[in-house]
């Protein structure tokens, strides 16, 4: 097969002698032999073990405090208050106590959590209009049909439209540290809690050379909301409209019915919070507005620190350790079997 014949004359239609056409491409033919599989398994076991231990140590280094406030403390009253349909939409304030037994070092994050709230229902999830929320004038006035049934209210287009925005979580919190010298308000950053891309690309206010209210002229607020979208944050005029960070956080729908969302980040500029949250007693004043009793929901607040690995979730470290054990077990079993049966390649004889 060595010599190439010219493509003329008697051998004109002879196929080319290329490795590809003759299926002789150089190739590596791996086979699952003991010398590759067994060492590989042991290495895997070791790797998983290492990762498991490493992650476990990391996770143990984070602190987390969860507090279900649905019916806790004085919020019980609010819970009952809102159960009464007459009071829907009215405000109620309450207070819960949180003891921190250990100091929370470093950055501390404040989350609110909801349980049993299905942000992942297909119809619910679809009920939004990204084109509207990126500030397109056309879509502002003519929201997508997906927003059904919150497209218009009294013939005015709703901004932001859809079920997601309409059901936005509207409890608000203030955290107090009960220091020996008296209660101190814990300062929280209320911005910087969203993804950069969401804040800067995905959500934009409709353009107007006058005020923000002007930009939203001709639209109406979602029915469940107390305030129109351009008045969401009275304290910070730049945090209004579609780029309100709480709204953005809410609009990033959770994958599962139990979720938590970032509410604020500890401002570590002043004592005694420069190192984080000191141990001691804390209380949270809650403006209790969000009704959860209809769907058996629960509400929580979560205080947590993070590491490179994120928060305090022990699933992965434990899963790695379990996997490591499994792999090791398999490796040992296979080694024994190989030693007894396969070592001399007797089975490989015809």
């Amino acid at each position, binding site marked *: *097969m060595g010599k190439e014949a010219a493509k003329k004359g008697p051998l004109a239609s002879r196929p080319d002698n290329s490795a590809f056409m003759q299926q002789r491409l150089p190739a590596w033919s791996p086979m699952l032999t003991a010398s590759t599989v067994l060492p590989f398994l042991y290495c895997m076991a070791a790797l998983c073990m290492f990762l498991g231990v490493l992650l476990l140590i990391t996770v143990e280094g984070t602190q987390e405090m969860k507090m279900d406030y649905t019916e806790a403390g004085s919020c019980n009253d609010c819970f009952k208050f809102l159960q009464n349909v007459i009071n829907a939409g009215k405000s109620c304030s309450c207070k819960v106590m949180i003891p921190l037994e250990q100091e929370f070092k470093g950055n501390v994050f404040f989350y609110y959590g909801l349980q049993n709230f*299905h942000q992942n229902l297909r119809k619910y999830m679809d009920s939004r209009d990204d084109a509207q929320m990126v500030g397109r004038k056309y879509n502002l006035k003519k929201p997508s049909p997906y927003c059904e049934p919150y497209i218009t209210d009294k013939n005015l287009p709703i901004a932001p439209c859809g079920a997601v925005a309409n059901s936005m979580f509207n409890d608000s919190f203030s955290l107090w540290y009960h220091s020996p010298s008296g209660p101190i308000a814990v300062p929280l950053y209320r911005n910087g809690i969203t*993804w950069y*891309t*969401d804040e800067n690309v995905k959500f934009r206010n409709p353009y107007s050379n006058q005020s923000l209210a002007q930009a939203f002229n001709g639209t109406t607020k979602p029915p469940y909301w107390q305030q129109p979208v351009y008045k969401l944050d009275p304290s910070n005029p730049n945090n209004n409209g579609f780029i309100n960070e709480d709204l953005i956080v809410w609009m*990033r729908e959770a994958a599962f019915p*139990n*979720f938590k969302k970032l509410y604020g980040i500890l401002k570590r500029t002043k004592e005694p919070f420069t190192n984080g949250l000191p141990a001691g007693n804390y209380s949270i004043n809650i403006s209790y507005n969000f009704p959860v009793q209809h769907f058996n929901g629960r509400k929580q607040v979560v205080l947590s620190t993070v*590491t490179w690995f994120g928060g305090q979730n022990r699933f992965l470290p434990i*899963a790695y350790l379990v996997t490591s054990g499994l792999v090791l077990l398999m490796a040992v079993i296979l080694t024994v079997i190989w030693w007894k049966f396969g070592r001399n390649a007797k089975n490989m004889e015809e």
Partner: protein
Amino acid sequence: MSFFGLTWMRERERESERKLRANDREYNLAFKYATNGIKTSKYNFFTFLPLNLFEQFQRIANVYFLFLLLLQVIPQISSLSWFTTVVPLILVLAVTAAKDATDDINRHRNDNRVNNRKVQVLIDGKLCSERWMDVKVGDIIKLESNQFITADLLLLSSSEPLNLVYIETAELDGETNLKVRQALTVTGAMGDDISRLAGFNGEVICEAPNNRLDHFTGTLLFGDHKFSLDNGKILLRGCTLRNTHWCYGLVLFGGPETKLMQNCGKNIFKRTSIDHLMNVLVIFIFGVLALMCAVLAVGNWLWEINKGYRFTIFLPRQEDSNASLSAFLTFWSYVIILNTLVPISLYVSVEVIRLGNSFYIDWDRKMYDARSDTPAEARTTTLNEELGQVKYIFSDKTGTLTQNIMTFNKCTINGKTYGDVYNYSGQRQDVNEHTEVVDFSFNPLADTKFSFHDHSLVEDVKLGTPEVQGFFRLLALCHTVMAEEKNELAYQAQSPDEGALVTAARNFGFVFCSRTPESITIMEMGKQQRYELLAILDFNNVRKRMSVIVRSPGGRVSLYCKGADTVIFERLHPSCRNLMEVTTEHLNEFAGDGLRTLALAYKDVDEEFLSSWRQRHHEASTALEDREAKLELLFEEMETDLLLLGATAIEDKLQDGVPQTIEQLSKADIKMWVLTGDKQETAENIGYSCNLLREEMNEVFVISGNTPDEVREELRNAWTTMKPDKAEGMVFLPESLLSKRGSAIKDEVVTGEYGLVINGNSLAYALDDSMALDFLWTACMCQAVICCRVTPLQKAQVVELVKKYKKAVTLAIGDGANDVSMIKAAHIGVGISGQEGMQAVSSSDYSFAQFRFLQRLLLVHGRWSYLRMCKFLRYFFYKNFTFTFVHFWFAFFCGFSAQTVYDEWFITLYNLVYTALPVLGLSLFDQDVDDVWSFQYPQLYVPGQLNMYFSKTAFFKCALHSGFSSLVLFFIPYGAMSDTMRNDGKDLGDYQSFAVITQTCLLVTVCIQLSLEVAYWTTVNTIFVVGSLVMYFVVTFAMYSNGMFLLSPSSFSFIGTARNTLNQPNVWLTILLTSIMCVLPVLVYRFLTIQLWPTVNDKVMFKARQAKAAPPPLSRKARMRRGSSRRSGYAFSHAQGYGELVTSRRFLRRPTVSPSSGITPMKRSTTSFIPMGRSAGYSPTAGAHNTKVPDVEVTSLQMYRTT
């Protein structure tokens, strides 16, 4: 083949009788007979799109996707955007349509080639050159030598004496000898007188078109007389005119109504067994899909009742909707979401893979025949993997196993053998193309193509050894060959063997020159001698011998006899005992070499005895009663006390490498059946010489009964011989028990090897419904089966029988038109190409030039294709099931609301882009071991026959594996992500991040899984796998980029998700963990099976690994000489009755005219003797069969390890 009403209309008014009038187109037109054009194509330019779409939407998967598309339009149901279905569907339809279009264009081209052949037609008293397709019933056409016969014709007149024409019917029935057809005297008288022919107004009434090749009835009404017409006056399309300058014929049947086309059978669309399995699986998948959707719909109903109604405050329902309606809609929504269970891209991928593997066949150099410059060709691209599952091969003999060339190879004269070549040390040498050839230049009349290697024979002839001279004198006298002297001497022999013998005698100086009914003229060593021919004792099958009685110029009366050795030996004079023993020994040797032998004997006849004998002979031959028997007795009386001269050995040249191929195939557990139109003896002999029948076989049964009872009895005997322990009553179970649908007849385990030979008559009975199963059962217990004297239709019937009851994959291989029906009937049809007459090839699925390429087609290409297809299917189902099942698990967390786990773009592109190339790489490049090892271990082929690589079990394993993988792929990201946050404190548990994580995990896992499947990692595979992963990330980042979002915010709402998710270490740790968890069980399972229960593949792969440094062990020398004692095979294959023609009183030798017409007559045949046969004499590479081209084709297995 044709559409709309055309066939149907014709079907309806089925003609019962055909009427036509010569030269009267108007009259004949009234009957609307088919013209001579043929049409095998399906579409034309305008019908293509509608017809093709119509056909494509007959495929259940396409309809299903259309249905999905409709579902997606309903807003309440639509759970996915329309493009997820439309994009793949359009792609699939387009690819298939493109393929169908190219196929049909090829068919058009073929049709045109045949339809546009030219023939001379008599129109308005002039001969015009017309295209075949324009020839009409009732036309008179003129044919010349070596032309294909245009349509079914009534022979009117010919150039030869007695209005004879010679035709070769090999294309039709596979018989190699020339046949004679004779025109009616009344039409023959017209000769080539154009005006008389143009005035011919005979009317023919004959049978309607049918497929019986050997039968024709009709009458010709000419003048006031009626003449009856039979098969002997008909020239059928598909035959070739030979040795006849010209002839005129009247077209009776044209195009689709010719017997050839009627015999072709229907063009069935062939599907592979994997296709059938896939259809079953798809239906099963539909079931599973419905079940899953039902479970989820019920889940939705429960959820709506328990939870959903409370959630309406955030997500109000339509007023009238309730839980039941929601559940109903959810069912259909999930039908859409889970549609990936029935993968539409599966069918496209399968087509692409088959196409790729077909190209490999086209490209294979080792299946390229240099002599005829023909590469192998995969003519259909849909059957590749079936090549890896063949269990039964049905082979034609002539032209397929044999070259159809007879050569005088050896002889034994007076106890001395000639023909072997010895070297200086006295060792026998193998004859090859370099061996020195005997120089026949002393003889000016010698045939230049004849070659002989043993010089001693020619020496002995020249020395004038009387026995040697007598030997060749016999060969020159005792035959029925006719000589023709044009520019050079040419012979017309009815059987190729006789031709070979007479040619041998010619070269050794005993040249047969001419004959008259009373005399034979030969040139004896340069001297012309005229022998008076006194009687011919003709050949028949019982006598197995023929004799002539001649009076030499010297006045000596001798009888020369040649025949089967056993027959001759019985009639020898006792004095020949010693010589007989020696000759017997030599004959054994010849038979051991697979040669066909004839014993030659003579005796001098006493004048007085002769005259009385002739007297009685005359009486007997004119007797009205019992003529045959009386003649038989007379012949017996004459042929006694013969003196043995010697024996000839003729080689029926096998194609190269046939015995080795058959041996290899039998090692691969493939059963070989030879179906031939040839005689039993010939077929049997070839069976031995090509290793099909073996000396070691316990017994070779011959079934040749003439009544159903005889056949049944013989079959029964064969059965009891093979299975003596079985009770007689058990032998034949009632058919009702066996022919239950779906139950294949199991192979019986037989100790010892057996062969079965059955002839056409018996086969007709054996194929009858009442006996078919008995026959099949018996035949399948034998290692080799030979059916001889079978008609094309019987060939197909045999194939159908095996197909029907054995549920095994069958392959038919042949080269002539007589094989077409069988080629079409079998699962796979293979045509031998490179010779003239492409009938078989054009209806075949694969074609190549040499039989021996079959082993490469099956053992290498077929096996690889099957392996690849199975790997592909297993992997494909795995990846799609895994993909889909994750949705199922997610349903339990999203309130069964038909929310998808992945991004819609991922769903659209997963099959088409992200995973398409790696799996194609797997299924185009994978090989377990290379071709050398495949040949080394033919048993690697067996798993394919047993469907071991892909079956329902394998499918369930895939599904289970997918179930496991999908659990891992859903729950590990769920556990890892549901209660954590990013390392900057922002939340991570959102839907979009989860989608990206899960889909990345899925893709990585699926790629790793693929890598475990790949046994042959080429660079391309690596590029495909790595490239696909890279492409995934590139496409994902692009889709989730700012630009795309701003382009269409609602379609690309995943903006930034990739960036924000994939920069998290715990995401990558999750991906790593899912991969490990998914791969671990596979790794362990594979390793365990290799260690504990290695398959034959594992074993050979292991060996190949071990031997990687050293080349594989050399296979033993191809074939040893058989020490055989069998020699029933005698060289005689022509029919009885030629002797009568030769001695016919009417026979008048016309002086040979050198044709003055412009047509050059038979240019090639003028050079020398024509070996009578299909491939001989007129092939464009005439002579190439004898003079081998150097440097090509090493025949043994060694050819596969030259590189």
